[in-house]
């Protein structure tokens, strides 16, 4: 990955009537990066993508692609291509004609267009389907045609709008890996829009989390999960517990039951914070002395037990102002508990991130 900026979005706002679908966002995506825009439906991620594609024009702000201003340029004059959520394959054209469409529009000589289209179709392993119409293909095959149709133009940036949304789980997982491989193979910047956090985490170099038109956090996948910037990001990505508390001093937080625990807290003393604790980072022990020495220990009572096959969830009550969920891997001979058992909940300082209110 180089440091060249593939897509530069500065102060971009898009209003539909009175509603700001995208609200003053700034974002820079590096050349060769696999960048995901993640958020719930209606958060503005698709609108952002469409503005990069030229299918919407921003109300305010600047959109640059490799340094060139594009904000108001029509889509056919931008060096980007899109894989649409619905694939948008032309139903009256064959696979080959679909893939060659962009080349034909750019007046690429016929022979070269045929060759490049053929290569692109081979890349997505549809060599046997060139003469078929889209309606004769499965969902996964249509998806690959859409990908080939976009990539054949060698765009500087490839935009993908929830391209895997219509596929079933197994196929989606296979396509995630395939997409990532293709991206590394062609080295093109990918901007990927999804509401599926798992998909974003597995595929992306960096993720931008959006909500209500605003970009809440832009960071590598691991940072998004381990160090969420705020409550929304922590809650949207994965599962977590929120426990209210007050900062006593740096990295020390007093909880609702009066106990002071160590956490990652950089707020000044006296600040009301919310600790986010991921269920899988919590451990249960029978007695305090069983837990590692530098862990925080809180005595709790089990109020509910849920069996998930690969794991068990325990809901814990400890007078913290919130029920705490704890996930325990289903490993043979590991101790299990029942409702009303008294247990010691322990977690490391690194597992608790203090978020400002």
């Amino acid at each position, binding site marked *: 990955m180089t440091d060249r900026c593939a897509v530069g979005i500065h102060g971009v706002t898009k209003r539909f009537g009175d509603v700001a679908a995208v609200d003053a966002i700034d974002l820079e995506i590096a050349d060769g990066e696999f960048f995901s825009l993640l958020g719930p439906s209606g958060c503005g991620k698709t609108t952002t993508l469409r503005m990069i594609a030229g299918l919407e024009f921003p109300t305010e702000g600047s959109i640059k692609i490799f340094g060139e201003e594009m904000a108001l340029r029509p889509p*056919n004059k931008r060096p980007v291509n*899109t894989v*649409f959520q*619905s694939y*948008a394959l*032309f139903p009256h054209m064959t696979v080959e004609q679909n893939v060659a469409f*962009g080349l034909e*529009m*750019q007046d690429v000589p016929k022979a070269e267009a045929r060759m490049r289209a053929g290569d692109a179709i081979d890349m997505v392993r549809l060599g046997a389907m060139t003469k078929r119409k889209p309606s004769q293909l499965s969902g996964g095959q249509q998806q690959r045609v859409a990908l080939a149709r976009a990539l054949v*133009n060698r765009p500087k940036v490839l935009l993908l709008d929830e391209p895997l949304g219509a596929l079933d789980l197994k196929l989606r997982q296979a396509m995630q890996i395939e997409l990532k491989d293709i991206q590394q193979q062609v080295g093109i910047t990918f901007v990927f829009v999804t509401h599926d956090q798992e998909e974003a985490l597995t595929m992306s170099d960096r993720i931008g989390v959006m909500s209500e038109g605003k970009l809440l956090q832009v960071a590598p996948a691991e940072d998004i999960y381990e160090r969420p910037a705020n409550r929304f990001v922590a809650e949207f990505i994965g599962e977590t517990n929120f426990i209210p508390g007050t900062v006593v001093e740096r990295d020390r937080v007093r909880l609702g039951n009066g106990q002071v625990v160590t956490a990652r807290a950089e707020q000044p003393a006296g600040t009301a914070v919310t600790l986010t604790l991921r269920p899988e980072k919590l451990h249960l022990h029978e007695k305090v002395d069983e837990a590692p020495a530098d862990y925080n220990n809180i005595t709790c009572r089990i109020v509910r037990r849920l069996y998930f096959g690969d794991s068990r969830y325990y809901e814990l009550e400890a007078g913290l102002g919130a029920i705490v969920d704890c996930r325990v891997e289903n490993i043979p001979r590991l101790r299990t508990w029942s409702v009303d058992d008294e247990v010691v909940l322990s977690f490391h300082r690194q597992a608790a991130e203090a978020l400002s209110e």
Partner: protein
Amino acid sequence: MTLLEEHPPVEAANPELEAQSVKAAARRGLLHALPAYVYLVFFFALPLVIVFVFSFASRSTTGRPVLGGWNLDSYARLVEPVIRTIAARSLWLALLNTVICLLIGYPFAYWIATRSKSSNRNLLLVLVLIPFWSNFLVRTYAWRVLLDSNGPVTGLGEATGLWGQMLFTQPAVFIGLLYGYLPFMVLPLYAAIERLDWSLVEGARDLYATGWEAFRKVTLPLSKPGVIAGSILVFIPSLGAYVTPDILGGAKTTLLGNYIVTQFTSGRNWPFGAALSFVILAAMLIATIFYFRSGGKTL
């Protein structure tokens, strides 16, 4: 468990039962279609047979059709120059009307179909349909007033020096046909354009197509069923038009429809009128089938 086991095993397939259900479905289908069948037999097939039979009949000295003395004389007369002139004129007017209706109707239907509010779309469609609320004959007579030598259209033509008296000329017939059949072009076009998947147009634009190229390569081919349906709905009645040329046209604008009517009335030549009707019907049927086929291939 024991209860379940006591049931007789379910047979994999019961051919007799299956055949019965297929028959029952066919019976129900026939029952649904029965009124339409009866209608078609009595008001289409039977009259057609009568026309067909009369086309081989002969005439008495006074011109009465005589069912007997069967001959092909009426068919032989179809190649007479007067028929060729009238057929060519009708064909030309019907084709011109279809093309102009398409050129006016497509942008209009496109415009209606792309209004974002459905209430606006419905309002515009109602406006297209409003003329149907009054009788076609009355509306055609209204055109007579408009096109008359004292009428506004003639006035405008004389003021600009572009045209003179229009009534009883071919342009008047054409205006009447265009006016009468434009809605039949707009409605099927609207239906076809309205259900277009606009993400396909966005896809084309994203793939470097200009607005015009996206229209030519995507919108137009995908709205072809509407173009075909609209063209047939305009072309066929235009070719057989009777009321419009009769009221707005003159002696030099006789079309096939008028000519056939004349054969059955003042011409007193039923066999010839019947033969002409039948040949036109057959030609139209064949042309329509070809037209549909040519559209079907690309869809």
